[in-house]
């Protein structure tokens, strides 16, 4: 069943709010990553407010789906989304990101935030962990298990051999409950992925490793929903959703520029970005005007 229009509206508003929270937290932190968190806000919103089986009040609920964030540097979007979903205080997140003693470490650390499925930051290790979880689930429940294992990856970490080792293994093991979602934003630190380490033909690579492959617009909730549903319906193959995204999505001045990979907005840039988000890029009047 297609996602209802009202639901899509609701998710869009939520994602906008989450983008605002990301900007506020980064400005306050004074360091951190901007491009990836903004471009993955729609997918995180979809998962935590619709697609994912989880319970913010019971983060250790055994029946929950597992979400492994492999590219830990985009944690501002993970924290912001989990905060809005009710795992912890939005305010505390905005005030303490990356500060000494915070739950919200510069890269996710389970010691400080036990609701996380894993710690990450060093790239290329997330997919293997999700494969391990899916394999363990299959040992316990066979194909009748009803938990899904989501691995969120970046395109840049497809430079890492470890990622492809996991792709190979998941294909061999036909892990139907494994769903990888790749942030295909075409940037990494040194520049555009196709200049630094070309990945194309990207979808064909996954196909050759016996995965079920879908390429979607990563900013369309109906496309995300359809792709996730289709991925869940595939039982004899792991699934990858290659989500084409616009780095820095939502703030025109940040979009498509790899320099925003790893720096936060200044106070002024943050204010500009917030105004843009609150008015949906000038389409509506802000209540603050």
């Amino acid at each position: 069943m297609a996602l209802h229009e009202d639901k899509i509206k609701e998710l869009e508003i939520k994602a906008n709010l989450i983008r605002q929270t990301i900007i506020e937290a980064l400005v306050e932190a004074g360091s951190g990553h901007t491009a990836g968190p903004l471009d993955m806000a729609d997918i995180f919103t979809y998962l935590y407010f619709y697609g994912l089986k989880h319970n913010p009040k019971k983060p250790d609920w055994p029946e929950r789906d597992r979400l492994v964030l492999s590219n830990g540097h985009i944690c501002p979007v993970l924290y912001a989304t989990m905060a809005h979903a009710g795992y912890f205080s939005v305010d505390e997140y905005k005030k303490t990101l990356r500060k000494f003693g915070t739950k919200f470490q510069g890269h996710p650390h389970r010691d400080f935030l036990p609701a996380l499925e894993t710690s990450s930051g060093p790239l290329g290790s997330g997919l293997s962990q999700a494969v391990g979880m899916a394999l363990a689930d299959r040992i316990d429940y066979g194909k009748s298990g009803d938990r899904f294992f989501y691995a969120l990856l970046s395109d840049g970490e497809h430079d890492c051999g470890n990622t492809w080792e996991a792709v190979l293994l998941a294909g061999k093991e036909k892990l139907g409950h494994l769903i990888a979602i790749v942030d295909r934003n075409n940037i990494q630190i040194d520049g555009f992925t196709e200049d630094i380490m070309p990945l194309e033909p990207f979808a064909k690579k996954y196909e050759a490793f016996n995965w079920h492959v879908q390429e979607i617009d990563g900013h369309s909730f109906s496309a995300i929903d359809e792709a996730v549903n289709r991925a869940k319906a595939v039982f004899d193959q792991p699934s990858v959703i290659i989500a084409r995204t616009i780095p820095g999505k939502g703030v025109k001045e940040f979009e498509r520029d790899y320099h925003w990979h790893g720096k936060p907005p200044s106070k002024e840039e943050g204010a500009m970005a917030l105004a843009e988000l609150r008015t949906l890029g000038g389409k509506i009047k802000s209540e603050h005007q």
Partner: protein
Amino acid sequence: MLRQDTKLNPKLFSPNVEQIPIRKGFGEGLLATGEADERVVGLCADLTESTQMHLFAKKFPNRFVEIGVAEQNLVTVASGMAAMGKIPFVSSYAMFSPGRNWEQIRTTIAYNNRPVKIAGSHAGVSVGPDGGTHQAIEDIALMRVLPRMVVLSPCDAIEAKKATLAATKIDHPTYIRLAREKTPVMTTADTPFEIGKAAVFFAPEKGKADVGMTVTGALTHKALQAARWLSEEGLRVKVLNFATIKPLDEKALVELAREAGAIVTVEEHQIAGGFGSAVAECLAARMPVPIEFIGVRDLFGQSGTPDELLEHYGMGVGHIKDAVRRVMKRKT
């Protein structure tokens, strides 16, 4: 007092002493050594500017290879290039190189005896807000345990430049430890530098030292501050800076232990297996004296400002002074 013959920066103790990130010295050194020797090639794993290899990459695009986020490939490709007569410099964050690719370094570089130069930037907890995943505090241990590996740990940008130039000239696989943050410039162009030699940075005005400090890396500045305070309190302190951790300058170390009869070692690294361990291994065998260790005690790093973290993990000036007082009590 600061040793005159070491020609240190006279503004070293000034509150507005010039501060430059150590990694910058590497970038300048690589450019200079690349100009002097055309066998030098550079390889980087998607951190070209952050590790300061961009200067070399711009000047010598034909001798630079962008490897992408693939540290295992980074060092193994470098080994292949060394086999063909090149002198490869590879750079990444220390956490990923040698953190991620240690076995590849062991087999294809050290075991094969290839003169690859591995620059590990962003070492230590002073990386700050990025947090524990990015703070390499195990890399000295990882590298000094490898046969043939030379381990350099410069204290400032000027020393890092000299270390980079010197690394080209030796045939050994070499690790150069670098830090992210701005670090006070302690040395000058005239400060002597030689691989394998420690240098006296601070010594009593007259007479034998009561206590010796052996230090490496950026924390040398904190050690010198502690030494100055302690000497104002009447203690005679000698500080030896070890820009080379391996091969260790055992002669200078044993002499210091003999003279002072008590040692405090200082490093921004796990105590287990690090520079202090190298000091202890040598002195236990050749000149046993009480030793106190400044470093991280079996913990991971976390987010915070560099100073908050150095204090939290027991590597502040006050901790160094306390360690000196403790070791003095143990002196027989």
